[in-house]
């Protein structure tokens, strides 16, 4: 079995020795350098620009402004293109924009012989603005009379949706009736999450050059085939005239599931006569001008019967979209959908979601896609209901969990397998939940301890909201090994390794004999929409499995030609064997040599398939945390923490564990310290650097424990389900609930910073 082996990552040695090549390693040393001029207002218009002094600077090749760009608005998110116009992404930006929508918006660019010359040229550009007051919250943006940030949306509401699940036959007419029913315990709450950023190590970097009348863009992206399409759209040229190459990348976490600066880079290259131009975002530009996680506020209600069953819930989510649509309403919609799922409502559920333009740096996709936000609201709510009703928070969750076979009444996603209850049981035992719950009751004194938990569910890929398609190609080498080519991308998560294992499993050969082509070149790589939505092991996995099985059949067909007298044949290890006895009849190396060079029948054995996946499934998990709170200084120390996941069958358990560690780390920063802060007067990002943005360091981490419950999901290619994003989801509410347990103080806004805690403790009389 190749699936299930904890083999070393196929790229491990190259990465730890520094041999792996990233975009900047590959960029020609004589490339021109582009730098972007950013606005010094958050809201308004560029009235005029004087570039003469910049152009006069020796070494400056081109100065281009928002007055020079093509009159084309294009969409940027890394979604599969929709052939239905109503479902297409919002096209709300040009390459450079006269309409300034965020502080630091892209309004001009300089191409020069080196970075310093480009920077000096930027300093010499004079800009005249017409300025409006910055609008920094959805409430402010939706107020009457506020000038629209995008003229297509006069009320600044990008989208507003309302949905309600069908009610079973009863006296209730709608969810509101159930929520108002005095027979039930009625709960309402308000929870808020903050804007955070991915903080991948490698900032978005690309370079572009002309070759053969086409534009080649080499870029740090999760989605090379989508970048090709968007560059074509943004420049108004046929998509086939664009070639995108994706080398190794230093992380993405969703930020690079967006076409960020590649179109501008391609256009600057064209304007510079096709010379190679490099465009690299600094860390500060990455914070301000690329994507982040949406701040969302939630108003929730619930009705619970005397036995502790959820009768109905409702959720109103208001998502701050910042200055550009990016992924549009998809994230707020996913947040309210996620709020609905995890637990079952016996009668009713109502969701309402707003996505609102403001002058914030525009959020987009980030690990979890709305679920880290809604899960905070949901799991705080579950804790608070249990507390109000005197229920055990573990039992209350346990009895309301989504049952196996659950079908979401609105999108049809089905629970094909669930280990959610086993995950909870495992986490409870690991932490000694019952013992600690009891021990930490009724504490006094300045330092107190508590335990908290949170549960989540997460879908796998984007069906049926969007298309799921993937292709794979397997090519026989002359020595009997194979090459695997994919459009799916390695972004640090270990994709290449598990793809290789799946390929080996499907063919019947050792993983060591699969040579994966890590780089995607859209001229060569089969089509796949890329790394996002925890989809690749599932969707690409199906493509690999199908292609591997077809490839295996071809090997056996050729073997049959060489072994006409043999019984039933099989591929095992490095041989064609007799299926019954297991006796080796022919090595794959000999088969390959014969196939390539036979004077009788030469054939280059390859297989290529598309897998169009029309299914989805839920993964599950939970987090249990034990914390210590130093009340007078507002500090939380996480003493022990464990995530338990049901992601179906694990393809590579060691890599799965590493994935969970990374997600938990992200969850800890989200819970305790990370937050993008804006100046209220100007809308300027105050802490857009890694000193002032409090990403936790190694010293801030407790030991991270990852446990698994392996189910075998019937819809997964190898029994597997999503794992990429889920580990980041449950950590923040688990810590918040532990804080509640330790101190009795409910903090409903993230992050749980010392100052926020001290304020809350003072308000509650603890200080």
């Amino acid at each position, binding site marked *: 079995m190749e699936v299930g082996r904890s083999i070393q990552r196929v790229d491990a040695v190259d990465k730890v020795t520094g041999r792996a090549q990233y975009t900047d390693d590959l960029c020609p040393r004589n490339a021109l350098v582009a730098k972007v001029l950013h606005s010094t207002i958050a809201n308004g218009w560029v009235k005029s620009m004087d570039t003469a002094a910049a152009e006069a600077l020796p070494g400056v090749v081109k100065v281009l402004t928002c007055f020079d760009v093509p009159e084309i608005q294009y969409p940027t998110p890394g979604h599969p293109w929709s052939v239905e116009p109503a479902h297409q992404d919002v096209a709300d930006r040009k390459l450079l924009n006269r309409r300034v929508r965020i502080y630091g918006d892209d309004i001009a660019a300089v191409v020069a012989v*080196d*970075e*310093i010359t480009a*920077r*000096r040229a930027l*300093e010499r550009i004079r800009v005249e603005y017409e300025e409006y007051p910055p609008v920094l919250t959805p409430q402010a943006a939706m107020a009457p009379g506020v000038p629209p940030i995008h003229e297509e949306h006069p009320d600044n509401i990008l989208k507003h949706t309302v949905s309600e699940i069908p009610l079973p036959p009863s006296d209730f007419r709608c969810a509101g009736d159930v929520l108002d029913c005095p027979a039930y315990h009625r709960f309402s709450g308000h929870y808020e999450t903050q804007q955070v950023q991915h903080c991948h190590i490698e900032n978005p970097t690309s370079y572009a050059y002309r070759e053969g009348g086409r534009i080649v863009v080499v870029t740090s992206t999760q989605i090379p085939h989508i970048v090709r399409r968007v560059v074509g759209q943004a420049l108004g040229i046929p998509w086939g005239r664009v070639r995108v190459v994706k080398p190794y990348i230093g992380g993405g976490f969703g930020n690079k599931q967006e076409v960020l600066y590649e179109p501008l880079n391609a256009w600057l290259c064209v304007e510079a006569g096709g010379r190679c131009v490099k465009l690299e975002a600094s860390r500060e530009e990455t914070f301000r001008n690329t994507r982040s996680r949406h701040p969302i506020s939630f108003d929730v209600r619930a009705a619970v019967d005397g036995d502790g069953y959820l009768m109905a819930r409702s959720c109103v989510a208001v998502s701050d979209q910042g200055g550009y649509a990016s992924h549009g309403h998809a994230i707020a919609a996913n947040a309210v959908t996620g709020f609905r799922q995890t637990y079952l409502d016996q009668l009713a559920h109502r969701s309402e979601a707003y996505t609102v333009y403001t002058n914030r740096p525009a959020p987009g996709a980030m690990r979890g896609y709305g679920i880290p936000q809604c899960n905070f609201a949901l799991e705080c709510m579950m804790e608070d209901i249990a507390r109000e009703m005197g229920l055990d928070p573990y039992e209350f969750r346990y009895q309301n969990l989504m049952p196996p076979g659950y079908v979401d009444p609105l999108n049809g996603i089905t629970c094909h397998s669930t280990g959610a209850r086993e995950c909870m049981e495992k986490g409870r035992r690991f932490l000694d939940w019952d013992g600690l719950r009891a021990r930490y009751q009724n504490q006094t004194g300045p330092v107190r301890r508590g335990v908290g938990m949170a549960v989540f569910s997460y879908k796998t890929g984007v069906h049926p909201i969007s298309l799921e398609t993937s292709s794979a190609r397997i090519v026989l080498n002359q020595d009997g090994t194979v090459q695997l080519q994919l459009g799916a991308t390695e972004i640090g998560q270990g994709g290449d390794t598990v793809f290789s294992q799946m390929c080996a499993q499907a063919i019947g050969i050792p993983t060591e004999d699969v040579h994966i082509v890590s780089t995607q070149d859209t001229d060569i790589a089969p089509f796949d929409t890329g790394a996002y939505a925890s989809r690749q092991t599932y969707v690409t996995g199906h493509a690999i499995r199908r292609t591997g099985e077809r490839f295996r059949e071809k090997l056996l067909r050729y073997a049959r030609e060489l072994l006409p007298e043999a019984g039933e044949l099989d591929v095992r290890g490095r041989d064609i064997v007799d299926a019954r006895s297991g006796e080796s009849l022919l090595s794959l190396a000999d088969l390959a040599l014969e196939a390539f060079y036979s004077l009788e029948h030469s054939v280059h054995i390859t297989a290529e398939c598309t897998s169009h996946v029309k299914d989805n499934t839920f993964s599950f998990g939970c987090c249990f945390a034990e914390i210590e709170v130093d009340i*007078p*200084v*507002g500090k939380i120390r996480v003493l022990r923490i464990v995530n338990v996941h049901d992601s179906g069958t694990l393809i590579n358990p060691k890599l799965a564990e590493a994935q969970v560690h990374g997600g938990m780390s992200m969850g800890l920063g989200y819970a305790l*310290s990370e937050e993008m*802060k804006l*100046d209220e007067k100007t809308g300027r990002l*105050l*802490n857009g650097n*890694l*000193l*002032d943005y*409090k990403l*936790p*360091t*190694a*010293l*801030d981490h407790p030991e991270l424990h990852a446990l698994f419950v392996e189910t075998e999901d019937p819809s997964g290619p190898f029994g597997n389900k999503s794992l990429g994003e889920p580990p980041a989801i449950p950590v923040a509410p688990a810590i918040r609930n532990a804080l509640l347990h330790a101190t009795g103080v409910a903090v409903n806004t993230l992050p749980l*910073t*010392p*100052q926020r805690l*001290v*304020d809350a403790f003072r308000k509650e009389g603890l*200080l």
Partner: protein
Amino acid sequence: MYDIASIYQARSVADAIRALQADPSALVIAGGTDVLIKVREGKLAGCSLVSIHGLGEELSGVTQASGGDIEIGPLTTFRGVAFDPVIRRCIPVLGEAVDQAGGPQLRAAGTIGGNVCNGITSADSASTLMALGAVLRVRSPRGEREVPIAQWYKGVGKVDLAHEELLVKIVIPRANCEGYTGHYIKYAMRSAMDIATLGVSCLVKLSADKRTVEEARLAFGVAGPVPMRACGAEAAVRGLPIGEAVGRIGRAALEDVHPRSSWRASKEFRLQLVEELSGRALREAARKGGAQI
């Protein structure tokens, strides 16, 4: 790429001072951990630099003078201070304080002199040097002068150092450290790679029976625009039994400080930290001095 117009590598202190005289716009660079950040941010883009990085022989290292004063070369790195045997023996609290600056890379490059000359209230060495009553010896073409650290800080990022002057020694007078034990608390949002929200350094001299505070020194970073001593709090606990002193010093310190609200932390939060952490620092300092508390 750093936008630097020129860099002159000084061969001696005298040579560095000559170079500064020759170029009124030149800036001194030592470890570079502050200067290069400002160049990169554009604040010092296009600057001319005089590097004293190579003057280790004249400006680096820690010694104990014959009279018992501790003399620290300003070019000694944070790491150099933290691991120096004289510091560890005589004023371990200073080594512990500078060992909390940034991360290992920064501590191997950044210098204690740079930390002092930069004049930033959050500097990790500042509150402890303040509590120790350090004396700063500076040299100019006109000779040397000594500035008590209490008079060194002139405002945010401003110190009593003229363009043609170079810090050549940080002196800790024997009387200010002998018999004292100390504790520094860096309160920050992270355990490493961070700047202090509040820095508290407390030194204490105990009575022979280890029960009473004979003398206490309390100093803060980020409790105001410049590092500061809390003289009122020091006086308030002089002669008190340790437990009582620990209980009282924080409240007394509130009268000495004047932190401001910024987007990094509110005034109220910083005051809460001043009150709480002063007592904690005193308690730890007393413990190190042998008190049972």
